């Protein structure tokens, strides 16, 4: 596609997007055939994320969050229903979608700056230019001075920030994150939340965060979708009307506590259902 035609499709679609949203899931389902029968990981999920919005998906583990992440990221190309980004149907990895993974995903053989400039290197940007740009994003995630370190020399939280900076460097229209801070301790997680809030202020980045942590979801989001456990459906979508700019200090406020309690009520049912089902399965397996 030529640059000109790309530009026209883009402008033609902007007006439609304002109402429809930048990322739209329309009746999305994903089933996995397994030897024990079909697992419905995502069941008829519809949602729409607006330009500049911070949207979180929360649910107990095993409810289909990562499947949702992989479908939107284009890593699972076969699904039922429709997923569109800026009006284009997702059939594979889309250049407008940037992904941050749950597992440690920095390249251990590259320094911080080489990691962060990776997507720019793939685009063919000359070294001096891509390093300059990478430095900007390294600064943004607060890793100045660590440009020439290797991931093995960094803490877990710092490595996740490297991954975040690397994805930001590709300047995606939508930033998708799958439990990026799940492996970190609570304090680090709150402080990284602050970092994410700052970045959000600065870039007005459209973001979809997948998490199982309520505090994190309320601290960061404009809207939160609570998912049910098996099959993964939309249980409720909650608007978070907390003032911005926010910091982690908001965690102490009454309004914050109110939201946390509300979401916990929803999530509790699902999580305990997940727990009993898991145990039930373990018992059947043990007695088999």
């Amino acid at each position, binding site marked *: 596609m030529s640059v000109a035609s790309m530009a026209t499709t883009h402008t033609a679609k902007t007006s439609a997007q304002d109402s429809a949203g930048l990322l739209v899931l329309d009746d999305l389902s994903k089933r996995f055939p397994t030897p024990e029968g079909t697992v419905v990981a995502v069941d008829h999920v519809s949602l729409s994320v607006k330009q500049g919005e911070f949207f979180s998906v929360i649910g107990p583990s095993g409810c289909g969050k990562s499947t949702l992440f992989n479908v939107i*990221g*284009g*890593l699972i190309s076969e699904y039922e229903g429709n997923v569109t980004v800026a009006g284009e149907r997702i059939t594979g*990895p889309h*250049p407008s*979608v*940037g*992904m941050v*993974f749950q*597992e*440690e*995903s920095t*390249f*251990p*053989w*590259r320094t911080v700056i080489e990691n962060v400039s*990776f*997507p720019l*290197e*793939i685009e063919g940007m000359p070294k001096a230019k891509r390093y300059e740009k990478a430095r900007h994003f390294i600064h943004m995630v607060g890793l100045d001075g660590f440009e020439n370190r*290797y*991931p*093995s020399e960094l803490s877990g939280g710092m490595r996740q920030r490297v991954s975040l900076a690397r994805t930001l460097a*590709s300047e995606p229209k939508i930033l998708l994150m799958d439990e990026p801070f799940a492996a970190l301790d609570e304090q680090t997680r709150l402080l990284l939340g602050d970092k994410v809030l700052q970045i959000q202020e600065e870039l007005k980045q459209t973001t979809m965060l997948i998490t199982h942590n309520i505090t994190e979801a309320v601290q960061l989001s404009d809207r939160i979708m609570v998912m049910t456990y098996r099959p993964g459906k939309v249980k409720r979508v909650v608007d978070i009307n907390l003032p911005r700019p926010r910091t982690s200090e908001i965690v102490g406020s009454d309004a914050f506590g109110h939201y946390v309690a509300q979401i916990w009520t929803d999530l509790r049912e699902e999580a305990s259902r997940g727990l009993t089902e898991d145990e039930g399965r373990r018992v059947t397996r043990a007695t088999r």
Partner: protein
Amino acid sequence: MNRSALARIPGLPALFGFGCLVVSILAFEILIRAGVINRFIVPMPSQIAASFERVIIEEHLLERFVLTFKECFYAAILITLVGVSLGALLHRVDLLRRATETWVAAAASAPTVLMYPLFLVIFGRSSTTIIMMAFVAGLPPVILKTIEGLSGTRRVLINVGRSFNLTQSQMFWKILFPAAMPTIFVGLKLGLIFTLINVVGVEFLINFGGLGQLINDLAERYDLPGTYAAICFVILVSVVFFVVIERIERWLRPAD
């Protein structure tokens, strides 16, 4: 100070290793002089040292050293290029891999050196025979470890590549290959051991060329100090190769 702290003092491990060598040489010298070890089977280290000059001058040792070194070098280059490429090919084409992996593993433990008559017929009594035999002996571990390294690449790193829309060749050169590098080096070092053994072994066997032939000659003349002196130079060849490959590894993988 605990033991691991001792190990971290710069130069101490190397010094300790060298010390052990000196001590065992001295021990041999004493045991042989005392008659505990038969001096007609194991010559005294001092005799070996004294024979260096003779062996170097009379037996053209430097030329032989260079010849053996060259044969090792070519065989090492061959196992690297062919082994890594074949490993990458087998990793890529699953059918080929399933069809051949067991054979390659079997070849790794087969005494290929026994095939030297075949190689003599094909390549003649020449350096080529020696290089080819060393190549065949060192190849399987490189192939196997290359496959292992490439298929052991963490799923999430491949997914990062996919999410950035990498082409097949970018995926290989920017993610799979660097991720496999540590394992490939394990294969190269293993392969190199077989290669070096085979170079000297085949020289010895077909009585041609470098240090292996010299050892053959000296042993037949019952020049034991000379034989051991020549063996020292064989060890020197391996030491040089391993120092070089470790340098290359550190240069290619500065991360660890």
